[in-house]
């Protein structure tokens, strides 16, 4: 009997069972023993998720869940319009189908280069939806210098893409390098408390049902770290602010379905690929009880970090040297 059990365990062929690997076979292995940025996200899995999401029902599914990105793109445009300058070319890093680029007008920007790693997402919407000239470039958001010549860009924008980047400090450095002197970087990314309701509900359900937790919601960048990261990457004249988008859903199930259609499924390395149905049902109940609104819906919080940074240039205004003031503040105040 024990012999039988052993041989079954050793038998490599199991019909009708698909074994999911934590890391897809064609992504680079996480570098555990090398010096380098810590690998948190499976970028290859993310690309596949986003490709699939954009292809579902010919893009119709993906279009219905544009609401978060469209809202954030509009808020980002407000910040962009505050900058009194005209641009020839702007790079939209991690553009997706062009949520931000679609809003641009020709009196401000001549041309947009959309750069994204997911081909299907990049080509989801036709050029006719854009007012400005567009060029689509498939490339790695994490390594912008692979697709762009250093020191060549007037402005780089990024709308809700940097939260899937493994090496955020490195990516910011590359963005800075890609810019011309006095070039602009304007970005928006999910951070801080994004989806904390979902995170906590799943954690509680997993602890109570399975007796342990595994990552289902990505670790997010803390708002306070962003300005440090920007200045470390060599940007000056920083502006960082945060904002929240709250969306009400009928239940946790609709939230999870929409996240999947957005291509925002879990892509943390070492994630558990299945959640037991019991755990999901438990999490849904907990979500509603802990966070639910009075009208029976459940809220989902998306926290957005907006950042503006400039590449230093000698022409930029600089603070005067300490002690060079001529007017006594005491007289003014």
């Amino acid at each position, binding site marked *: 009997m024990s012999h039988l059990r052993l041989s079954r365990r050793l038998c490599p062929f199991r019909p009708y069972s698909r074994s999911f690997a934590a890391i897809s076979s064609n992504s680079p292995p996480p570098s555990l023993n090398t010096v380098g940025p810590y690998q948190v996200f499976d970028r290859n899995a993310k690309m596949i998720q986003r490709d699939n999401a954009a292809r579902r029902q010919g893009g119709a599914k993906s279009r219905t869940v544009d609401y978060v990105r469209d809202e954030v793109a509009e808020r980002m445009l407000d910040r962009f319009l505050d900058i009194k300058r005209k641009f020839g070319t702007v790079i939209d890093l991690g553009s997706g189908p062009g949520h931000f680029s679609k809003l641009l007008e020709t009196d401000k920007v001549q041309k947009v280069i959309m750069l994204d790693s997911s081909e299907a997402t990049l080509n989801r919407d036709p050029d006719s939806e854009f007012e400005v000239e567009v060029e689509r470039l498939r490339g790695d958001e994490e390594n912008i210098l692979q697709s762009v010549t250093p020191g060549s860009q007037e402005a780089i924008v990024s709308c809700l893409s940097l939260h899937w980047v493994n090496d955020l400090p490195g990516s910011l450095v590359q963005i800075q390098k890609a810019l011309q002197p006095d070039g602009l970087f304007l970005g928006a990314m999910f951070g801080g408390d994004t989806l904390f309701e979902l995170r906590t509900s799943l954690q509680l359900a997993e602890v*109570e049902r399975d007796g342990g937790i595994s990552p289902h919601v990505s670790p997010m960048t803390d708002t306070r770290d962003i300005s440090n990261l920007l200045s470390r990457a060599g940007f000056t004249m920083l502006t960082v602010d945060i904002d929240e988008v709250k969306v009400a859903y009928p239940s946790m199930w609709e939230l999870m379905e929409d996240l999947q259609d957005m291509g925002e499924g879990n892509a943390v390395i070492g994630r558990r690929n299945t959640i037991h149905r019991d755990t*999901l*049902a*438990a999490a849904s*109940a*907990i979500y509603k009880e802990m966070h639910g609104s009075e009208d029976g819906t459940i809220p989902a919080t998306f926290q957005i970090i907006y950042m503006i940074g400039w590449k230093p240039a000698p022409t930029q205004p600089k603070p005067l040297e300490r002690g060079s003031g001529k007017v006594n503040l005491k007289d003014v105040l």
Partner: protein
Amino acid sequence: MIQTAAKQRSQPLKRLAIHSTSTCSLQATTYAKCIVATYKDVTKDICKEEFLQFKICLREAVRRHILSHYCHLYNTLHR
């Protein structure tokens, strides 16, 4: 009608979603209240009994769902 029923049958997660939020909402709330009452010190199976009731309800709901689906299929085929 068959198409929608078949569609629902092919999406077991959708079915679970419907039953866990509407059909068994009472049991779900009882379970969640138990968790919320102890959420600072949740351990495995701390609300086992409440979850069991929730699960029984879910199982029953799914069973009835499938049964009614086949009844419907049977009736339309043998009309």
